[in-house]
């Protein structure tokens, strides 16, 4: 019974915030805290909850919290908390804004715990509305266009995904992820598709390939994988910084999570033929993301492309797993890396965007890379903590970013060595543009206009402190994250036996 509460508490918060007078909007921070508390109570045992919905079509509102979900749920609560605090710090206190963030949180909980397509898709789509409104209504000058593009592209992807799953419902009669996984393991989906779509004259394998592509399309837009990333830079740049945190820290993880939870288990049969496509798309994502980041002068846009680049690694690892199911150790490494990367990137990106927010507060909205310079002396603490976040992002050993990327590349080299090798260029480029940002902002002569810039305030130190803890701890001790997720990863591995 805890699971509905997960979703209900933020929703209740949203209603309260929306109804209470505007001055109480800061109370919104309480709700992610409450969620964290709840998550910690079920940390060990997980949970399950199900409500029959259309029983004779096998549709149920089924939710389950296992180790994998747990990580993502934790991430949702943490990033939402940071985003809300950041919002208050930068003076965004509108009731609607806070309420929408809480709605988003609720929907994200649903996405990461739902085990049936219907409730999952419901929450998946539900994230769209608050995200759209948050960008649209509280974003910068170009927000309307950016928000619309974000909305339409994601929705377009979802439509394909919906059609894909409908095809499954109509042929095998269920959209439950676990049930589909079982059917897939027994190779029952392709024949059923062939039977149901006999009038198309296509073979079951080809049909399954089409369905898998449709589902992939929906997920690819969300991650995003090149060339479906067109919505991302504008949306990230135009959104208010806390919302950007949510977008990159959480919404992009929906795609990664779904890759692990849905795409791999449901379509194991067609993974090998899809693998080349997936891996080269992933390589393109890694490289284009990095190259584009190099060309940016707006740090928000730069970090946006950096996110594309980082999530490209996740896509690469998934593609590697898809390419060959022979080497179990390598697969385990790639999947564990993906999970870690998803969590860590969420935290690191939050820290980086929080840094941007700190800059924005001090510069009254200016945030071009060339507007700053020499801040190291003026704001040493800020420089230090931001530096740690940057190094975590480019994968310095000892910080969390390293572990995930190492594991992913470890697996990927074994499974698709060529793609992995090309992607390494991305790693180098990442270092280049991140360090360039550090140099432009913190080194060099201090710009006179920045002479009175204050260093971090108390609240800001607290936030950075929390985030740094979450960056350093898993870097030194990855088991703290991998431990709970391990059973789920092993399940997945068991599932992905090679198909003839």
């Amino acid at each position, binding site marked *: 019974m805890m699971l509905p509460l997960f979703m209900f508490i933020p929703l209740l918060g949203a209603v309260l915030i929306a109804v209470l007078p505007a001055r109480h909007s800061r109370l919104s921070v309480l709700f992610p805290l409450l969620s964290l508390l709840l998550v910690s109570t079920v940390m060990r045992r997980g949970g399950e909850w199900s409500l029959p919905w*259309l029983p004779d079509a096998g549709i149920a509102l089924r939710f389950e919290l296992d180790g994998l979900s747990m990580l993502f749920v934790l991430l949702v609560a943490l990033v939402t908390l940071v985003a809300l605090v950041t919002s208050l710090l930068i003076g965004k206190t509108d009731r609607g804004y806070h309420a929408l963030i809480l709605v988003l949180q609720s929907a994200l909980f649903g996405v990461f715990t739902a085990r049936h397509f219907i409730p999952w898709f*419901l929450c998946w789509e*539900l994230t769209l509305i608050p995200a759209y409104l948050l960008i*649209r209504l509280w974003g910068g000058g170009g927000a309307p266009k950016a928000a619309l593009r974000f909305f339409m592209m994601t*929705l377009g992807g979802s439509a394909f995904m919906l059609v894909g799953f409908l095809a499954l419902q*109509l042929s095998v009669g269920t959209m439950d992820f676990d049930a589909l996984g079982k059917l897939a393991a027994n190779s029952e989906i392709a024949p059923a598709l062939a039977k149901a779509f006999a009038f198309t004259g296509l073979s079951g394998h080809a049909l399954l390939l089409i369905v898998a592509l449709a589902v992939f399309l929906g997920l690819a837009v969300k991650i995003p994988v090149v060339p479906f990333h067109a919505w991302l830079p504008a949306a990230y740049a135009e959104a208010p910084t806390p919302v950007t945190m949510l977008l990159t820290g959480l919404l992009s993880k929906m795609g990664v999570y779904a890759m692990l939870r849905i795409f791999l288990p449901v379509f194991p049969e067609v993974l090998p033929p899809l693998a080349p496509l997936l891996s080269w798309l992933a390589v393109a994502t890694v490289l284009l993301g990095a190259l584009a980041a190099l060309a940016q002068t707006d740090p928000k846009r730069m970090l946006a492309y950096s996110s594309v680049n980082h999530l490209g690694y996740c896509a690469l690892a998934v593609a590697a797993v898809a390419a060959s199911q022979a080497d179990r150790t390598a697969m385990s490494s790639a999947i564990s890396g993906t999970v870690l990367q998803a969590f860590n990137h969420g935290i690191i990106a939050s820290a980086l965007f929080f840094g941007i927010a700190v800059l924005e507060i001090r510069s009254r909205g200016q945030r071009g890379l060339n507007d700053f310079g020499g801040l190291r002396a003026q704001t040493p603490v800020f420089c230090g903590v931001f530096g740690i976040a940057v190094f975590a992002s480019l994968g310095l050993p000892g910080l969390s970013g390293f572990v995930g990327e190492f594991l992913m590349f470890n697996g990927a080299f074994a499974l698709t060595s060529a793609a992995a090798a090309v992607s390494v260029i991305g790693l180098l480029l990442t270092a280049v543009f991140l360090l360039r940002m550090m140099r432009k902002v913190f080194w060099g002569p201090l710009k006179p206009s920045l002479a009175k810039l204050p260093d971090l305030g108390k609240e800001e130190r607290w936030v950075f402190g929390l985030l740094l803890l979450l960056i350093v701890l898993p870097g030194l001790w990855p088991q703290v994250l991998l431990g709970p997720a391990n059973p789920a990863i092993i399940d997945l591995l068991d599932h992905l036996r090679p198909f003839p």
Partner: protein
Amino acid sequence: MTPAWTIPSAFAGALLVLLLPARMAMASRVVALVAAIVGALAAGVSCLARLRDPDAGIWSFNVPWVPEPGIRFHLAADGLALTLLFLTGITAIAGVLFSWNVEKRPRAFFAWFLTIIGGAYGVFLSRDAFLLFVFYEIVILPKYLLIAIWGSTNKEYGAMKLTMYSIGASALILLGIATAYAAAGGTSFDLMHLASANYSDGLQAWAFPVLFLGFAVLAGVWPLHTWAPTGHVAAPTAASMLLAGVVMKLGAYGALVVAMPLFEQGFEQWKPVIAGLAVTGILYGALTALTQKDLKFVIGYSSVSHMGFILLGLAVANHWGLRGAVMQMISHGIIAGLLFGIAGRVVYERTHTRDLMALKDFDLWKTLPGAALGFTLATAASMGLPGFSGFVAEISVIIGLWQKWPWLTALVALGIIVTGAFSLRALHRAFFPERSPSDAPPAKLPPLTWPEISAIVLLLAVSIAIGLYPKPWIALIDEALRSPLFQSFLTQP
């Protein structure tokens, strides 16, 4: 409370409102609201009772009315009737709330309004073809007057067109029912009796389309749908809500419980034609909505498109199709009511325009955030996103369609995509316009009133409740679909 409360509550409310002194406008609103709430409560409580004890006999009321031709006053409330009664009740409450500030002759307004509600209750409860037709016809004049007196935009034309379509369709229904009555021996109008009679193939081949078309016109079947957009646009808000929410459902309901059970062989013959018309309606309505400039026209054409799903579900006539059709009746009733309520009352009353370009100047999300939020959710519901009632309905119809004519699903899917496109276009242009900073700041608009907020919340809550937990509704509908009335044409998988 039994379903017996529904019809009298509406008619008694109408009478009471008329008897109030002319200056007591507030009292007339309250009476109308109370009457609507009593009806909705009765329907809701009966639904619950039915769910709790599905084995108990259904509520019925059966006395002779005009014995000589065999007309009985026969009402019965199976699950199908109950769900639709509930829809009517909810729409009635929301309609009264959205009409709270009607200043022009409020007594007459609410009296006619409640008369339509009462007629709708009657249709849903009737188990006698004649009685059903009587209630069906009662609705016509009040509809005309509501639109012609309290309407806007070309109201006399819209009202007249709507009324002539309705009465023309009624002539077909009359012909169909009278034919069935005559051919079944001329002794009884009871639906079961008429349905169990044997009609010759030749008779069914022409009598079915006549009867079905009569009902389908009111359900907005393409190409006889043109009354719907003009009528909806011309009507005052509450009447638009009723028209799209309830009256169009009367047509669909009539087709389901009268036309199809009576002439099942005729239905079998004409099925593909109906399905073709329905799919055409889905696509045509959606594409036309994509090009409209008036917000209410967008909603009006979207109704045509959504009603296509109902007709499609009926044409499919397997368990999924019928269930989906009924779910869509409820779902579209709620959602259309909500869309019309916000567009017609909340927005139009304040901005005096529904032109999508003109609304740009009001920057509605800033000036009326509540309405923008409500309309956004309603749009999401109308697009058939999961979590709202529309999804349950449409997916059921699609599953049914898949079992019957798989290749048609592609066209329907296209219709759904276009639906998404026009819904978002209208939402975006009307509520989230792109404005350059140089534009004049929008005029201040009065905030939402409590009746408006309650109506929006009520309708949204029902749609979401059904969307999140459709099981009880499905249980009610399934139980009703097991009635012998439907077995002759219900194709088993």
